[in-house]
């Protein structure tokens, strides 16, 4: 039951100022008059509404039939046009089947069903004091029956047992879920001294002579597809190869890491790891399309704008006896996004 602290609500006891005839608050004026609908007054309008509802259900049935016919009549086929036709026909059939039912039911409710509002009483959520006392009583009885209060050791043993029993499951899960948990893998890629730079995705080695000034090459290490997990290796090892006019290069990350203006940078953004794939030829900027970190490759790929902090690591390269571009070593720092122990 309600208590008096709800009492000043609308429609109930009205607080009166002392010495003043007017109440402190307005009173709820009670329900407004019901406005009859057209169909409540006119039998013809009522019949018309009924016919509309019947018509809407009929549209739904037609929609379903259309879907069934379309399913057999227009298979997806093998070209884009036939796939689109199949999808549109099936979808429209289903949509009409559903919308017909929906609109019919709602129109029925609004136009034909009794529209007189009804009121229901609310009660406070709180149980009354008697019930509360009763609840406490039964809990006390239960506790007394178990005598848990007097058996301290038993209680301790039970709580400990319950607390530690999930450990086997947690241990087995945590032990396996990260494979070998060898996080050192993040610090190395498959590039090593002498690995040839190959085109992505075909894997053809690149000759220094083929790299013209101003061109950009998407590079993978040769032999990538023979790795145990090629995608894992590729996710770390992809490289962008560019050739600048050597006079444009202001700074490199290491002495002799480029070959005649040809430079190789990790393609994995140092922000959160998207491939940095957009090259602006006029400004010599590399732009990450995900979060717009911008790197100036004439200046050691340092960040000139955006959310990344560190330059893209440079891969030291040279040429082998046959004129192919090869790595001098692995990257000198971990590639990709920062992580807690990256410098350890």
């Amino acid at each position, binding site marked *: 039951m309600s208590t008096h602290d709800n009492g000043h609500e609308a429609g109930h006891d009205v607080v009166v100022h002392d010495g003043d005839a*007017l109440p*402190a608050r307005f009173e709820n004026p009670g329900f407004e008059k019901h406005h009859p609908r057209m169909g409540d007054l006119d039998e013809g309008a009522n019949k018309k509404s009924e016919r509309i509802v019947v018509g809407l259900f009929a549209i739904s049935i037609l929609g379903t039939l259309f879907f069934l016919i379309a399913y057999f009549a227009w298979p997806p086929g093998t070209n884009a046009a036939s796939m689109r036709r199949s999808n549109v026909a099936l979808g429209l059939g289903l949509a009409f089947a559903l919308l017909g039912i929906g609109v019919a039911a*709602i129109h029925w409710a609004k136009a034909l069903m009794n529209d007189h509002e009804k009121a229901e009483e609310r009660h406070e959520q709180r149980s009354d004091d008697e019930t509360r006392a009763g609840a406490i009583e039964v809990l006390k009885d239960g506790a007394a029956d178990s005598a848990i209060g007097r058996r301290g050791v038993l209680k301790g043993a039970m709580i400990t047992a319950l607390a530690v029993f999930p450990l086997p499951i947690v241990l087995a899960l945590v032990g396996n879920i990260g494979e070998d948990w060898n996080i050192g893998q993040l610090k190395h890629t498959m590039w090593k001294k002498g690995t040839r730079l190959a085109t992505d995705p075909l894997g053809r080695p690149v000759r220094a002579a083929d790299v013209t000034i101003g061109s950009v090459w998407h590079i993978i290490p040769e032999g990538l597809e023979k790795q145990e997990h090629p995608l894992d290796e590729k996710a770390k090892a992809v490289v962008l190869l560019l050739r600048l006019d050597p006079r444009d290069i202001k700074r490199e990350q290491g002495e002799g890491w480029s070959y005649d203006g040809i430079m190789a940078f990790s*393609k994995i953004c140092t922000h959160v790891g998207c*491939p940095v794939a957009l090259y602006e030829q006029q400004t010599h900027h590399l732009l990450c*399309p995900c979060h*717009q*970190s911008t790197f100036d490759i004439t200046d050691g790929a340092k960040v000139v704008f955006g959310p990344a902090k560190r330059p893209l690591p440079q891969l030291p390269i040279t040429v082998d006896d046959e004129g192919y571009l090869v790595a001098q070593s692995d990257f000198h720092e971990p590639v990709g996004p920062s992580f807690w122990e990256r410098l*350890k």
Partner: protein
Amino acid sequence: MSTTAAPTRTERLAAGTADYLDQRTGLGAAVKTFARKIFPDHWSFLLGEIALYSFITLIISGIFLTMFFVPSMNETVYHGPWASLDGVQMSEAFASTLRLSFEVRGGLLMRQIHHWAALIFMAAIVTHMFRIFFTGAFRKPRELNWLVGFTLLILGLLAGFSGYSLPDDVLSGNGLRIADGVALAVPIIGTYASYLLFGGQFPGQDLIPRLFTVHILVVPGLILALIGLHLFFVVLHKHTQYPGSGRSNKNVVGYPLFPIYVAKAGGYFFLVFGVIALMGATMAINPVWNYGPFDPSPVSAGAQPDWYMLFLEGALRLMPGQAEVVIGGFTLSLNIIVPAMIVPGLLFTGLAIYPFLEAWVTGDNREHHLLDRPRNRPFRTAFGVSLLVAFFILVLAGSNDLIATHFHLSINDITWVFRFLLFLGPWFAFWVTKRVCLGLQRKDRELVLHGHETGRIVRFASGEYIEVHKPLDAHERWIRVQHDGIRPLEIEPAEDSRGVRRKGYRIDRVRQRISKVFYEDRVEPVTPAELAAAHSHGEHDALAAGDAHAEVTAGVGAGHASDHRDELAADARDH
């Protein structure tokens, strides 16, 4: 239909079934209690229903999809009707998505329905949540249900993100790469979190099967259970209602469940499903065959996540990179931690705890079943709008590259503008919204005290002109005066009568200060005494239409000048 007393065959069958069930379950009592349960009617109550029905649509279309989707990262070579990818190496997940789209009849439709339904599900959850927020429906006794709803929002985000990544296309793969980058940025345990997620290095072999289990079992199971709890609370508390004539805190006014809401809500399910089917039929979404299978190397420009993840993307884009620091050899990527964890953490925590904060500073422990008109709670409304503005600025920031290419603007300039807007926008929105709310409340007072302007200008015998105002009827007035005028908390003094410092005074001071921020600027509802006072000096309200006064046509400016005339008239009579 039978007109005789003897029951028809159908009636006998129904009675028999009912008897069978009731003898075994006591179903009769439940039917008697719930069949005619009253629910109030308002369009804004349909937002939550959209969320529910789009979830059912998700389950129906989702079950269809699981029959054909292969959650595996094993490599395979595609051969099928989509010629441009013929012979391309890809994961089985991607290949099965192509088969599902091109070879399963109705498969593409179901995929598109599923994706559109997910977008609508999230949109409905967010708008429903803000309806609850702006009308104060989260107040006692519904705070726990607010938390249930809040958890559903988080689960919805999880369901969306895990499902979006399943086809293993290059676009969602880059989304996962970003998720990996964010996981790596977590201090101390970040690297292990990434390994835990991917089962080793990114991308690994485990992610798609793991996401599949999360997406079709764990998250939807939790969502279903919590929807059950959410609706149980609605029935337990009975639905809130907007204030109005005859509606009070102690009743619920509306229509019975059977038949009105069986028809309306049932019909509404078909309507929601139907609209989503229409979208699936006519609007292409996530055409993964154009993106290609996942490969860590390529990426497309102008790539956007689904709309509900855009705010995170925007936050990541806005944060300047200088924030990354190295402390004692350990890297702390504040340029990722702040936008991807701290900013959303603050937004979401603020949303989750708001009901408790508001109750605390209002000093309010009554039950509330009547909704607030947003204008009557200027601080809350302004706070909600500023949260939304912050959210939308982040969404726009997540689309800064598209804004740049569409409007030919510099991406750097846009980013800088958003960096400032993120701080100025919410503040400005708060200020404007609060002023608008207070203005609307004043307008309510004005209407109650002086009535509607009629545009009828009357000249008295003395030569005085007034505009006749039509008083509000009791129903019109009630909606404008029914609310409580809430004042800042008053606290007990720091020292009691014997000059001893009171315990808990300091926390009371904090509470009072926040309470002032909430309620210092306010407009109180009109009281009967104020209305009587307004009438006694403005008798023109009572002028009958047929009075023998000369009437002149009201000019355009008549409305503006009427207040002034009221005062003049009152002054004149005082002399």
